[in-house]
């Protein structure tokens, strides 16, 4: 099984801690990068650009400053090179139907995964 690189974006320090641990424990990844701010994560993507490995992003929705959907909107204008390497899943505890609808209909979001994250579900979605 090839290991995947994962970026976690979540304003909750708890959730970053939990999911980083869980992802590493699951054996699907060796490196998890964590960001408590979507803006910082976006900055990271654009500065790394060509150095960026193929990455799966798990993106929280409700965050101060830049929320998940605002991140997706800003992500729309990054280079094709970055886009080609990134797969984004939204990871949220939302049960709001408008959020769910919006996440499911966004072309840049592969799927909306409910919190708490289930590794088996993620594996299925990634087909690994």
């Amino acid at each position, binding site marked *: 099984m090839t290991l995947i690189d994962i970026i976690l974006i979540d*304003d*909750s*320090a*708890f*959730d970053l*801690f*939990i*999911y980083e*641990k*869980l992802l590493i*424990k699951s054996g699907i990844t060796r490196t998890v990068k964590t960001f*408590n*701010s979507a803006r910082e994560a976006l900055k990271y993507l654009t500065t790394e650009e060509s150095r960026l490995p193929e990455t799966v992003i798990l993106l929280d929705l*409700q*965050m*101060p*400053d830049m929320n998940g959907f605002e991140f997706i909107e800003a992500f729309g204008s990054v280079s094709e090179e970055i886009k080609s390497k990134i797969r984004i899943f939204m990871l949220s*505890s*939302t*049960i*709001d139907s408008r959020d769910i609808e919006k996440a499911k209909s966004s072309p840049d979001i592969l799927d909306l995964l*409910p*919190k*708490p*994250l*289930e590794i088996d579900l993620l594996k299925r979605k990634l087909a690994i």
Partner: protein
Amino acid sequence: MSDKPIRILYIDDEEHNLHSFKATFRKQYDITTTISVIDAEEMLETHDFNIILADQRMPVMTGVQFFEKIRDRYPKIIRILITGHTDIGAAIDAINKGEVFRFIDKPWDYTYVENAITHAYEIYKTREDLKQRNIELQKANEELDKFVYSASHDLRAPLMSVLGIVNLALLEDDLQSQNEYLELIRKSVKKLDTFIINIIDYYKNARGVPVITDIDFEELITEVQATIQYLPEYGNLKITSTIDQKGLFRSDVMKLRIIFNNLINNAVKFQDNTKSEPYINLKVEASPTGAKIIVEDNGAGIREIDQDKIFKMFYRAGATNSGSGIGLYIVHEAIEKLGGTINISSVYGEGSIFELNIPSINK
């Protein structure tokens, strides 16, 4: 009725009618008159009328035609037709096309006209009030919608965190990490509890009946301080308070407690650990007219761009260490309900000063 007189526009091609109307009613109402429907239309553009009176028989166009013309553009204004000889056809037109509120027969009778105007204005006022209520209701609904959206997130997120930790803990055999997980669960539960308490505070503040009593600031601050010193984030913070209370200050102690609690809690939470002597200085000057309260700290401070937004519901200024964004909103609401004001001056990285002025409620 409001203090402003009822504003009436009266159109009649016979000038002496206008004069006599004005002479009779000028003390009661704010009256504008004209002999021309063209002038009348211009006046409608620039003035705000409650009621229009128009004579039926006029050159250029009849009163009903005039009403029909302006009806859609000025739907708020109540229309009254004055007519000498009413035939049934004109009456039908007046109702169906001009949508008039009343007919006034010529020669008109003082009481009858006054009555018609009073009733017309009542309708005008009721419609306006209804419109205003609808706007307010719509705003309240939008706020409620936002509230439910954010509150359900803030209630659910810590629970899902706990569930995540439990799932993780189940994969772990090592006892040491189990304890670490329990500690995380404790924090997450605590966060949820704080939020629930905040929601209850908010509700009490918004809906509760205020209880006005004599306020003893010394006692109030001691009480709030007692609950705060056990916070895990308390650290080696120093809280000093200077209270200068002369005479009776009366207010709602519940709201004041919410205000102090949130402001001090924030100061504790956002203290700057890089500073060797973190402090909070409380200053209260109270008299029978009002109280000036200052909460000053040398904590993290608030960025200038955030300063005008921090009182908004669910606005969270910091990405780290932040709460749900409801605390300062509740503070603001409580101060507003007490008829007071709050000002903030803060330098990012240096500290914040909140200055509150709250009047004493002497009744």
